């Protein structure tokens, strides 16, 4: 669990409910070397990028993801993963998606919804959007998992998962189980 800024405590709490794993807060290169999968939390993506750079984690994280480290980016984390960001230079640029930040507007436009996402869960999953980005486009190797009003809000590319919303803010663990299934 990348623990530089944002909703990492909520993610760690949710991970603590999952059997057979040992959640670790990652703040240093040494910790990043040891994990078997990583979640990039919600927060502010410009802040996260600055902190990754200052800690010398950006290149290492990118290299590990490119070598197959399972990764899940929620909201700001999804922005970090994207190969293309509308109007901006990408951060890690590892996942073949185009994102648009704050696509729904300001805080007053934040909202919650629910959707049935068959690969993830047979039941409707609660979706919480906080100044959320959307995925505007995906490359050929990317599976679209969920669309809301015609806009992509969850996608998977092999070992990489991106969601516009925040499962860590709900008590529904289906996205955690889905992500942990990437570990085999």
């Amino acid at each position, binding site marked *: 669990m990348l623990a530089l800024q944002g909703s990492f405590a909520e993610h760690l709490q949710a991970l603590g409910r999952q059997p057979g794993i040992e959640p670790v807060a990652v*703040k240093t290169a040494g910790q990043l070397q040891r994990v078997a999968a990583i979640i990039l939390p919600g927060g502010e993506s410009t802040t996260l990028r600055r*902190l990754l750079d200052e800690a010398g984690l950006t290149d290492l994280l990118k290299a590990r993801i490119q070598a197959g480290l399972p990764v899940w980016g929620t909201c700001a984390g999804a922005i970090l993963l994207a190969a293309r960001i509308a109007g901006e230079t990408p951060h890690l640029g590892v996942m073949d998606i185009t994102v648009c930040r704050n696509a729904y507007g300001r805080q*007053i436009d934040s909202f919650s919804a629910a959707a049935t996402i068959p690969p993830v869960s047979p039941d409707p999953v609660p979706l919480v959007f906080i100044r959320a980005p959307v995925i505007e486009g995906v490359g050929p190797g990317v599976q679209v998992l969920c669309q809301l009003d015609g806009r992509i809000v969850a996608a998977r590319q092999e070992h990489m998962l991106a969601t516009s919303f925040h499962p860590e803010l709900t008590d529904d663990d289906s996205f955690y189980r889905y992500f942990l299934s990437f570990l085999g």
Partner: protein
Amino acid sequence: MDDRSTLNRNLAQMLKGGVIMDVTDAEQAKIAQEAGAVAVMALERVPADIRRQGGVARMSDPKMIKEIQAAVTIPVMAKARIGHIAEARVLQALGIDFIDESEVLTPADDRYHLDKHQFAVPFVCGARDLGEALRRIGEGAAMIRTKGEAGTGNIVEAVRHQRQMQADIRRLQNLPPEERMTFSKEIAAPYDLVCQVAQSGKLPVVNFAAGGVATPADAALMMLLGSEGVFVGSGIFKSKDPARRARAIVQATTYYNDPEVVARVSEGLGEAMTGIELRDIPDSQKMADRGW
């Protein structure tokens, strides 16, 4: 609790572990974002200047707020006077992401705070102890910060408020259930919120430090005392090298538990803002005493 209140509390959760910086124009806002701020607070005068110049401090010019909104992608906050319904409505109409109903401005109402449930936009409010925090949350605040004594560069009041908050929570947790009602009467806080804190051991909303943070070590201190993030007002743009100090305070907030990092980022930062000893401030000019 309704959906809007939950979403507003959720936004505060996204700011955790971060630094929110006071800025007075678009240029400063860009410096703050570049340094790693999680949000900026748009205001016309930083608290140190309000303190020096005196007079009535009011909501900022909407033109300045709009320029700052256009300059950055991170959330933009702005201050309304305590109880000033119209200022808060103006800020909501401007699409501000968070309103600070702030004692740093001159209060507009000497008895009542805003009914924050009437707004869709989230509010942050200052508090000196658990009672004050729960009164503000009862009125609809989605986030709490210590008051500290803004514009002094002196951390002692923020420390006092955070310690008091934690002490109140610890005391409440040790009470048997039958004593909670009297406790709630003593601290003048809503009973249902008192029960909630007794069970969870923490405030039901995110709790930041504010008021007097001037150095990376000040930020680390507040995190060590249980704050979930830090507001820096005058401390950055009243110092010698704002961009570097801003980056250093961001680092110290993330790595508050690692003194080696705090030492490294504190090196050669140049002069911090000039501080004020609390005893030198007449009671009538203490901002923390504003709010009811």
